[in-house]
């Protein structure tokens, strides 16, 4: 009594024990499930114990009780089994045809028989074993659901006819069409296209004849043909014809030819059965048969503007627009339409804003040349010494040895100058990545909308195959180094941006709060707290950016960038495995040298 009082006085809390709640969970047939669950928990349920409903009507049972995982698994198993058996309807007729002439079709008969027996065996095995599996597992799955329900009361429980209705709908949607598909051969590629054309053509005829029924159309056309035939016969019968009559005769002949085509089209249309239409909708590919007229074939060119030059403005240019005549009757699908439109857009931008692109190309080329000169004219002992001193200062002796031997590799194989070209490209690209990536990263960390916009763009930049944007890069910036730098930036900038944003975002809220409490402005917060604390993360981003830039060096050789990558692509063209491997190793070594030294610097920074 007193104990109860003390307990009830402590904390009034609604604790409903669900141990006694199997009846609530199972609803129907609770006695059976109560004993099954108990035996399961005790480990006493023999493994051959089977749920009869699960064995015989698994879809209905599992839907009724809300065990959806089991519903899908049993549905999948049954459908796979049935699809195998359905092959009988696909190959059966073929086999019969083949038996009409057994000696000629021996190979076919042998093949079809073999296939069918495999399909039949697999189908029956799947059905039988699948059902057995479901029957054995049903109670265990159901117990799993029960355990889940005890934790989360919203889990499906009890029995519900509504769920059975949903299950039947799913079955109706999935099973017939899948099974039907299994009985049919893959249809001819042009068949569906021709079908669409016949349907479209007949629709046009219907409207031009002003009738609504195809039967009316046929009779109207027949009538017209009879009329034409009669008229022609009359004209042909008469011995002498006037000029008017002669021209009328040839007109009739033309009209007759046209009419014959129309009649053929109507015949084609009538030959299209409901089955054909269904097959084209569901058995062929996704029904994207829309064909449209291609975009106008326009080219934009920038040419000297003679008028302006005549007026004294030397070097003036203008953009001219040239339109090519469209190819008669050419239709394209939506993919081609869009691709051609993009080409025209690029062409327009290139011509219209030539100045901007040329200037940008020039800036890139000039800065590349400067950096290249710096790398190539610095005597190699100085660079090697510098790298080794850095390695010695920030990393261990092991790294010094590694750096030394890697650079020796470059020197021995006479790859030094070429490697320096690659380095120049990497340095310029990395510099751009830092100057662009850092602010964007900060912006992204601070602004939710910016994050929302930038994140998918970065993902695309990281995953889009680099070859696919090398082409537009060439279109805008020509070949050789400048477009290579830009392509490298596109490829290498995402980690810089992402890790800057990450570093700033992971500055603890409490630290920022403390800075604000001592009177920091937003700018001071950024420069004195957030950026310094994000440095390790930013350095990690920089490291990755450099690695990616180096790996891009090979690919940009495809558009004429010089350096180690060019050796690799040349070796690819000439099938010289040795050359390619050596240059590839050189790239890897340069990457590893930079990586090791940067890692050393990073760890010395993050010791703080």
């Amino acid at each position, binding site marked *: 009594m007193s104990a109860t009082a003390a307990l009830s006085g402590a904390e009034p809390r609604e604790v409903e024990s669900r141990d006694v709640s199997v009846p609530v969970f199972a609803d129907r047939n609770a006695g059976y499930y109560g004993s099954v669950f108990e035996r399961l928990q005790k480990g006493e349920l023999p493994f051959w114990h089977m749920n009869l409903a699960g064995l015989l009507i698994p879809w209905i049972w599992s839907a009724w009780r809300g065990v959806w995982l089991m519903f899908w698994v049993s549905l999948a198993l049954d459908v796979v089994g049935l699809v195998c058996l359905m092959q009988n309807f696909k190959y059966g007729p073929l086999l019969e045809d083949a038996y009409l002439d057994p000696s000629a079709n021996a190979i076919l008969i042998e093949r079809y028989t073999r296939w069918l027996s495999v399909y039949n065996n697999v189908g029956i095995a799947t059905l039988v074993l699948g059902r057995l599996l479901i029957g054995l597992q049903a109670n265990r799955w159901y117990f799993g659901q029960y355990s889940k329900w005890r934790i989360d009361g919203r889990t499906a429980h009890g029995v519900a006819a509504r769920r059975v209705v949903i299950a039947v709908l799913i079955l109706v949607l999935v099973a017939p069409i899948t099974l039907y598909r299994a009985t049919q051969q893959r249809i001819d590629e042009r068949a569906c296209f021709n079908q669409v054309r016949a349907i479209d053509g007949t629709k046009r005829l219907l409207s031009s004849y002003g009738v609504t029924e195809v039967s009316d159309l046929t009779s109207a056309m027949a009538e017209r043909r009879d009329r034409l035939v009669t008229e022609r016969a009359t004209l042909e019968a008469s011995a002498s014809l006037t000029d008017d009559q002669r021209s009328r005769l040839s007109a009739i002949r033309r009209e007759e030819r046209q009419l014959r085509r129309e009649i053929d089209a109507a015949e084609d249309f009538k030959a299209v059965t409901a089955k054909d239409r269904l097959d084209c909708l569901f058995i062929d590919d996704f029904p994207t048969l829309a064909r449209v007229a291609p975009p106008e074939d326009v080219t934009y060119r920038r040419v000297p503007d003679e008028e302006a030059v005549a007026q004294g403005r030397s070097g003036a240019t203008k953009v001219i627009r040239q339109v090519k005549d469209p190819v008669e009757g050419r239709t394209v699908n939506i993919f081609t339409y869009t691709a051609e439109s993009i080409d025209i857009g690029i062409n327009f931008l290139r011509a219209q804003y030539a100045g901007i692109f040329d200037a940008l190309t020039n800036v890139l080329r000039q800065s590349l040349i400067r950096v290249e000169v710096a790398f190539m004219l610095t005597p190699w002992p100085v660079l090697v010494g510098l790298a080794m001193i850095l390695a010695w200062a920030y990393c261990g002796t092991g790294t010094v040895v590694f750096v030394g031997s890697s650079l020796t590799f470059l020197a021995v194989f006479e790859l030094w100058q070429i490697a320096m070209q690659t380095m120049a490209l990497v340095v310029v690209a990395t510099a751009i990545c830092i100057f662009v990536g850092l602010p964007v990263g900060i912006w992204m960390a601070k602004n939710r909308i910016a994050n929302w916009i930038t994140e998918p763009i970065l993902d695309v930049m990281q995953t889009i195959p680099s070859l696919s944007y090398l082409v537009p890069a060439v279109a805008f910036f020509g070949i050789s180094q400048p477009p290579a730098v830009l392509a490298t930036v596109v490829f290498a900038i995402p980690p810089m941006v992402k890790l800057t944003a990450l570093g700033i975002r992971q500055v603890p809220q409490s630290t920022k709060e*403390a800075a604000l409490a001592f009177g920091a402005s937003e700018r001071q917060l950024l420069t004195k707290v957030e950026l310094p604390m994000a440095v390790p993360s930013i350095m990690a981003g920089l490291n990755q950016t450099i690695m990616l830039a180096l790996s891009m060096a090979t690919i940009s050789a495809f558009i004429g960038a010089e350096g180690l990558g060019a050796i690799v692509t040349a070796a690819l063209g000439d099938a010289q495995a040795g050359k390619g491997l050596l240059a590839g190793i050189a790239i890897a070594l340069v990457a590893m040298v930079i990586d090791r030294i940067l890692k050393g610097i990073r760890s010395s920074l993050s010791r703080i």
Partner: protein
Amino acid sequence: MSVVEVDGVWKIFGDRAAEAIAAVRNEGLGKAEVLNRFGAIIGVRDASFTVEKGEIFCLMGLSGSGKSTLVRHINRLIEPTAGTIRILGEDIGAMTPDVLRALRAEKIGMVFQNMALLPHRSVRDNIGFALELRGKDAYHRAQLADRALETVSLHGYGDRLPSELSGGMQQRVGLARALAADPEILLMDEPFSALDPLIRRNLQDEFLSLSQNVRKTTIFITHDLDEAIRMGDRIGIMNDGEIVQIGTAEDIVTAPADDYVADFVAGISRLKLVSASKIMVAVESHVARHGPIDDAHDYPTARPEDDLDTLVELSTGTELPVLIRHDGNTVGIVTKDTLLHGLQGTEAA
């Protein structure tokens, strides 16, 4: 003029705070209803108090009671949904960002439970942070920082990084950082809660003695009533965003405002908290019950402000009651019965 005046401050978190506050005021909605109807959470509910110059004001409450939220209103790290806060007579809600930053840097120092030191800066640069933000030059910064370090007895640690220091030392750095700019107000958000008991006790003592010297107006947050009683000149007890009682430790222990406070103070030793004046019986009623006071005996005497601990000391070894004398007059009498009931916190029969 009070140094800090908090007047009718409400804080409701959520997009529909304005609607929620109107509904709460007009219909007296509870926490759960506000959450249900507006998806808003009441952080602070109509809080008002003032803190005088040099006073240590403790805000006490369990976690989630809104005390940390309330204290962040005082330097406007959090904007109130309604109500005003005045610092030295100035409404901080009306301040421009510049003025507010100057106030934060020069007038208010803050100490955090998790220290929140900048890991990439030396102890000295951490302490000089507020000064640096105000553009003070490096030389003076270092001097002021070293002085602050001495105040918290960490002389010579200026060039260490925070990570090289123990938790207790880090919190001393936090305190030094708050003191460096010589602010008038200290906000201390559970500064000692994360430390182990011995170091906590140590720092409490040090802070109290430091406080004697510098007399900073302090708002001290804690979830520990013992700490509140040790540190606070006055204590405000918060529950569910509301300040349920404000008073001295003695007020709160002897006259809890409601069951919640009573539950809180139930386990607190009254020895050092309750004074003789709170439990003594008037001379007349004593005489009426026990007969006149015999002048022949040498009664022990005490003053009205003496605590129960002193009375126990006086009462042992004698059967006589203690006379409470004030200005040469006997103003009350404490018998052993009265004393024992007083210790227990119950009324004498």
